[in-house]
């Protein structure tokens, strides 16, 4: 189930909108994107029970592509009449499609790999090793191993294995702050401020992806009952109020949902 959006020229699921834009059935320049975001916020207001995190993150992906398409369509290019401009939308679509196709191939082959591993597991290798009476003059394997290195090896062996977390790497391939890191950051900053607008919280950020990650982090905090989110009027500032404890909260105390890829 995709998020429904409503704009003067289109009503329906957002991925259909992208499809129509890509097939040139709808001109992206005629689509105001603000109502699209309104639709998203409305969808959130209706309650998260209706939408899984997958659907919501898919919305963000599609919305990001729409924004990119529109900005490309609006910005005057060096040769506006060049027919290549026509292909811009197709490039984006093809990129998304080829990613989906490649992923599908890996998903299919992963299943085969699992079956191969299962078949291979039916044979157990011999690891009994040498008889005790064989004379071994092999070099000392512990040469260069210090107690410190041993302790580090232990720490590495028992280090918690983090579960996969969501971020929007598919929008940008630059390493960025993850949602739980942003949650951690906000959980320190918000108790100090009590109230803030989204703009204030993100004014120091330059990359769009970081702003989006802060937004997702706020949704997490809202879900955890630590903040309330409000908006005075349409297109008004997003207002955040901290309703958790007064003391800054360590992230260990916040259980952020683990998203599986």
């Amino acid at each position, binding site marked *: 189930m995709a998020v429904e959006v409503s704009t003067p020229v289109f009503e329906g699921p957002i991925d259909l909108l992208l499809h129509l834009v890509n097939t040139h059935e709808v001109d992206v320049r005629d689509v105001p994107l603000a109502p699209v975001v309104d639709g998203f916020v409305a969808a959130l207001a209706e309650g998260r029970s209706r939408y899984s995190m997958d659907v919501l993150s898919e919305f963000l992906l599609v919305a990001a592509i729409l924004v990119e398409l529109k900005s490309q369509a609006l910005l005057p290019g060096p040769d506006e009449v060049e027919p290549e401009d026509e292909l811009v939308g197709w490039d984006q679509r093809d990129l998304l499609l080829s990613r989906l196709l*490649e992923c599908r191939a890996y998903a299919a082959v992963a299943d085969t790999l699992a079956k191969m591993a299962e078949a291979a597991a039916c044979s157990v290798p*011999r690891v009994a090793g040498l008889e005790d009476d064989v004379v071994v003059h092999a070099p000392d394997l512990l040469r260069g191993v210090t107690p410190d290195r041993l302790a580090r090896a232990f720490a590495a062996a028992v280090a918690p294995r983090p579960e996969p977390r969501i971020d929007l790497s598919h929008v940008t391939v630059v390493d960025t702050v993850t949602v739980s890191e942003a949650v951690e950051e906000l959980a320190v900053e918000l108790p100090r401020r009590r109230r803030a607008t989204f703009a204030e919280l993100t004014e120091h950020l330059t990359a769009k992806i970081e702003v989006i990650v802060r937004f997702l982090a706020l949704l997490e905090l809202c879900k955890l009952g630590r903040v309330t989110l409000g908006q005075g009027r349409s297109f008004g500032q997003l207002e955040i109020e901290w309703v958790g404890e007064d003391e800054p909260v360590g992230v260990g105390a916040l259980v952020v949902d683990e998203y599986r890829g």
Partner: protein
Amino acid sequence: MHDDELARAIEAVVMVALEPVSPGLMAELFEEPVERVDAAAAELARTYERDRRGFVLARVAGGWRFQSHPELVAYVERFANRDVSHRLSTAALETLAIVAYRQPVSRAQIAALRGVNVDGVVRLLEQRGYIQAVGRADGPGQPVLFGTTELFLERLGLDSLAELPPIEDYLPGPEAVVELEERLRPPGD
């Protein structure tokens, strides 16, 4: 070295090894051409199979090792008192497949493909010993590049990466492309 002696030497050495023994190492030990050693090992493997032995001499991860015959897995499992198969999660398997086919590959490249953060999965696969850092990319930040390990080959019962099934066989055909495009539409539209 006589054929007989060579076969016996291979049996003796592989029997005491803890890991697959490469033909190259045996060639050095026995002072024989590597092709001859490899052919002798392959012949031994055929002999065991023909004689319906309860073990096999398998070519795994670039070397030869003794292992129990898969047909006797029930006894071996009962003996070892353990479930020999423990599956990775789907997410881990798909990530492993990407590393296997696209190595050397960076975290960001995997993430771009899978559409999610893969730090946790990559770390898990690294801890399990299925993948390892194999170098660094030239680009900004010089991200770590990952590749699969010998253990990965062993777990899959493969001799080398060349034995992985060709990924082309798994790429969706033209019909699937059309279907994928249509799946961008909601059902019933």
